[in-house]
């Protein structure tokens, strides 16, 4: 009937305004979360009150996969104050429908209705606020308690596209993070980061930047362009950004493992919902069903003894050389933090060709760096590699066989004991990788084989380019180096091509030492059925989490190696490839390599 009346009015052209619908005075509470549904949250409860009493108490079941999005309209009067509490629950909430006790995550807001407007109040439930309790009148923002007032001036008129991720306005996570690049920390004090130079200039200049944090449990969360809960661009620096102070504290406390940059899209505004992800057919991904421990599985202790040729033919590797710079960057990698490193310069002398302990068994003196943690080693390495004056004026015999004697370098590593899981000798040179001692102490490849088989010490060779006039002693160092590495169970790195090849080889060495073998914190129970346990890490190359399955035979997966976790077969190869590639990427550009935090992911106990 109304339609006919309106038609008549329209045809008379006089009463059209009277047919407009009446505007409603409402607040639409938009609840969203990137936490996992249903593993971490199953229900959300919205409680709205005014000074006149409750306005709404609604409980909704969340539908996964993340992001979960819910909108609840609350009617009120113009200028009426409204207090909203949004609580996320994993289990059943309190029986009282207006109670938000016991919530996994809680967010509050206090604002005001505006007459004849439906305003949108975004209420994201963030992982950083899980288990953070704040006083009444406060809310959790970025993991810290803060005032809950939201000025109504900042609220916008409600549209469904603000809540639901099925419109053109949703943030297409997969497209915007198609290729993720680790952010480079510039200032740890205020968590200023730099965009890698891989990000094109036009993306920097046009502000195309998004950030994804990798939380301590390997869950990911896209940050908003928001100074309180997300990040901001640094003024006058198109290549820098800074995360919110509350997130910076979490970063410094290692509760945020990494930050990744996506440079395809403009920054995600807090009003923009994430696009809905359609559930995929088949079983849910492991990360959706397993509970990932925030405890890190640290890399197992390792020791590296570097034998570095300081002959004249190696002079390009000393001083302000690309080699020295690359070594310095590699030693900053977090995955090497449990590795001790030492160094001794070659050549040796004929006097070292003895059957008892020779000078290589200790790391004393001006030509050596004692085994120590990476930070100490970096400084000590720099004090040697950084000076061209440490290079010999000629190419004397190296007496590598003296160094590789079981009473030489191998003895220094053997003395470290069994708690050091990985021991490696790395030879860095470009000539004379053969035996010189007389009487012979054995072929260098044979010595390496002995160390590998009997002492559990691997021997690797990094072959660098040589000067054209280098004295090779009628031996091909490539063949000798390859023989040593193969016999010694180590890696042969061919850095003879150019500096890029050198850095690639160095990155591969680092990945060998820092990957695939991890200690297990005592609080993690490794007894019982491990078949459903994954050991997980974030694979930057594929922009996704890698969940390595258990394989008791240690052919392709993870297995317990004593008290440690060992990746085997392709699981290890994949990780090393990712680690070496990203490390090479970083040191090629002068950045610190990205970390590969590893976590224990077991069936949830509930």
């Amino acid at each position: 009937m109304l339609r006919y009346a309106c038609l008549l009015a329209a045809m008379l052209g006089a009463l059209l305004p009277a047919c407009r619908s009446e505007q409603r005075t409402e607040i639409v509470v938009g609840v969203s979360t990137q936490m996992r549904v249903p593993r971490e949250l199953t229900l959300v409860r919205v409680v709205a009150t005014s000074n006149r009493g409750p306005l709404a108490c609604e409980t909704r079941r969340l539908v996964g996969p993340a992001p979960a999005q819910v909108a609840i309209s609350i009617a009120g009067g113009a200028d009426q104050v409204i207090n909203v509490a949004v609580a996320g629950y994993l289990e059943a909430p309190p029986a009282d429908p207006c109670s938000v006790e016991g919530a996994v995550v809680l967010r509050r807001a206090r604002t005001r209705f505006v007459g004849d407007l439906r305003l949108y109040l975004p209420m994201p439930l963030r992982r950083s606020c899980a288990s953070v309790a704040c006083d009444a009148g406060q809310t959790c923002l970025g993991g810290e308690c803060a005032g809950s007032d939201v000025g109504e001036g900042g609220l916008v008129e409600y549209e469904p596209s603000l809540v639901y991720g099925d419109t053109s306005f949703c943030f297409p996570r997969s497209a915007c993070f198609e290729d993720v690049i680790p952010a480079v920390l510039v200032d740890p004090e205020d968590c200023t980061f730099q965009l890698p130079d891989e990000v094109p200039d036009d993306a920097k200049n046009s502000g195309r930047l998004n950030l994804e944090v990798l939380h301590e449990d390997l869950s990911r969360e896209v940050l908003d362009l928001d100074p309180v809960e997300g990040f901001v661009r640094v003024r006058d620096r198109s290549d820098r950004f800074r995360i919110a102070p509350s997130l910076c504290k979490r970063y410094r406390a290692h509760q945020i493992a990494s930050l990744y940059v996506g440079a395809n899209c403009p920054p995600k505004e807090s009003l923009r919902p994430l696009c809905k992800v359609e559930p995929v057919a088949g079983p849910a991904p492991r990360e959706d069903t397993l509970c990932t421990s925030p405890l890190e599985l640290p890399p197992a202790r390792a020791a590296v003894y570097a034998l570095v040729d300081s002959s004249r033919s190696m002079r390009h590797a000393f001083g302000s050389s690309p080699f020295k710079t690359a070594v310095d960057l590699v030693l900053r990698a977090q995955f090497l933090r449990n590795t001790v490193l030492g160094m001794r310069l070659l050549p040796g002398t004929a006097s070292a060709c003895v059957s008892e302990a020779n000078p290589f068994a200790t790391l004393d003196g001006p030509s050596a760096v004692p085994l120590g943690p990476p930070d100490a080693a970096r400084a000590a390495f720099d004090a040697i590699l950084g000076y061209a004056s440490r290079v010999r004026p000629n190419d004397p015999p190296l007496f590598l066989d003296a160094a590789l004697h079981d009473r030489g370098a191998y003895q220094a590593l053997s003395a470290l004991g069994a708690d050091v899981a990985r021991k490696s000798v790395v030879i860095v040179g470009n000539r004379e990788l053969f035996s010189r001692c007389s009487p012979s102490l054995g072929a260098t490849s044979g010595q390496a084989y002995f160390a590998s088989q009997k002492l559990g010490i691997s021997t690797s060779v990094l072959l660098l380019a040589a000067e054209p006039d280098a004295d090779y002693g009628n031996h091909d160092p490539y063949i000798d180096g390859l023989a040593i590495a193969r016999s010694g169970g180590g890696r042969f790195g061919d850095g003879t091509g150019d500096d890029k090849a050198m850095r690639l080889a160095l990155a591969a060495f680092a990945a060998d030492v820092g990957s695939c073998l991890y200690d297990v914190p005592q609080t993690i129970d490794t007894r019982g059925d491990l078949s459903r346990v994954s050991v997980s890490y974030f694979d930057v190359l594929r922009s996704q989490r890698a969940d390595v399955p258990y394989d008791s035979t240690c052919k392709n997966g993870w297995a317990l190696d004593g008290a440690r976790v060992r990746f085997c077969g392709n699981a290890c190869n994949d990780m090393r490839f990712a680690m070496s590639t990203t490390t090479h990427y970083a040191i090629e550009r002068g950045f610190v390599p990205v970390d590969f935090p590893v976590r224990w992911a077991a069936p949830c106990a509930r």
Partner: protein
Amino acid sequence: MGGPMRALTMAFLASLLAFVGRARAEPARQGAYGGLALAGSLEPFGANNELQRGCTDLGAAVCSTPVPFGGGMFGYAGGMVGTVGLEIMAGGFMDYTRPSATFDGVPHKPHGNPLVSTPRREETFIILRGGAVLAPRARVWVDAGRVAWSFAGGVGLSYRYMALEREVTTDGALEDRPYFSHGTPYISPGLSLDASAQIRSTPTLALSIGLGLWAETAWGSTRAVADPTRTLQGSGKVEPVATPPYLMAYGLQLLLLPYLGLAFGP
């Protein structure tokens, strides 16, 4: 818009009554009559499309909303007794308009959604409307020598089909392929009013010059289809662009139809 429309309607009705009074003095004629005309189409107050109704609701800073114009053909046939006739009028018309909206990156109304205002861009639209009208009408004639004044009016139906195309241009390298929405039809009751001068060249043939008015309603749901996946793309970048269900026309549609044609009959 109600005011001008009401004034126009009243003036037309007053004129019609005055001429009907004069027509009573004319000698009686009888028989069949008809006419055929080519008409222009002009909607002086606009179609009430989305840009006209809520430019800032779209997030735009300013909108340009030229009046829809077009043309068509119509004919009528009926029988007359004296100076009064009853006829059926049928016609087909098409019109179009090219509104545009300029987005400067910020909302221009309180509590406006900033997301729809970005990126800075220019949106240009083509809104097409085509359809047919059918109306029984009453007609009167007032003879004045070689020229006969004729007035007609009636109530009928119209069927319209509307479609929209949008193009987006930005300062940057972002582009959007033209957006063609599915068309939307509407059926409306219509009011037809007509005034013409018929210049006789023979006793049964006249050149007809006139102005028609057609009023109808586009209701409230003549919308384009929203495209929830619409994005701007370029150089490997993606940005969303609001593509709501645009109102192509809304409510009262008042079309002026100046025409030139032939009139047949005694």
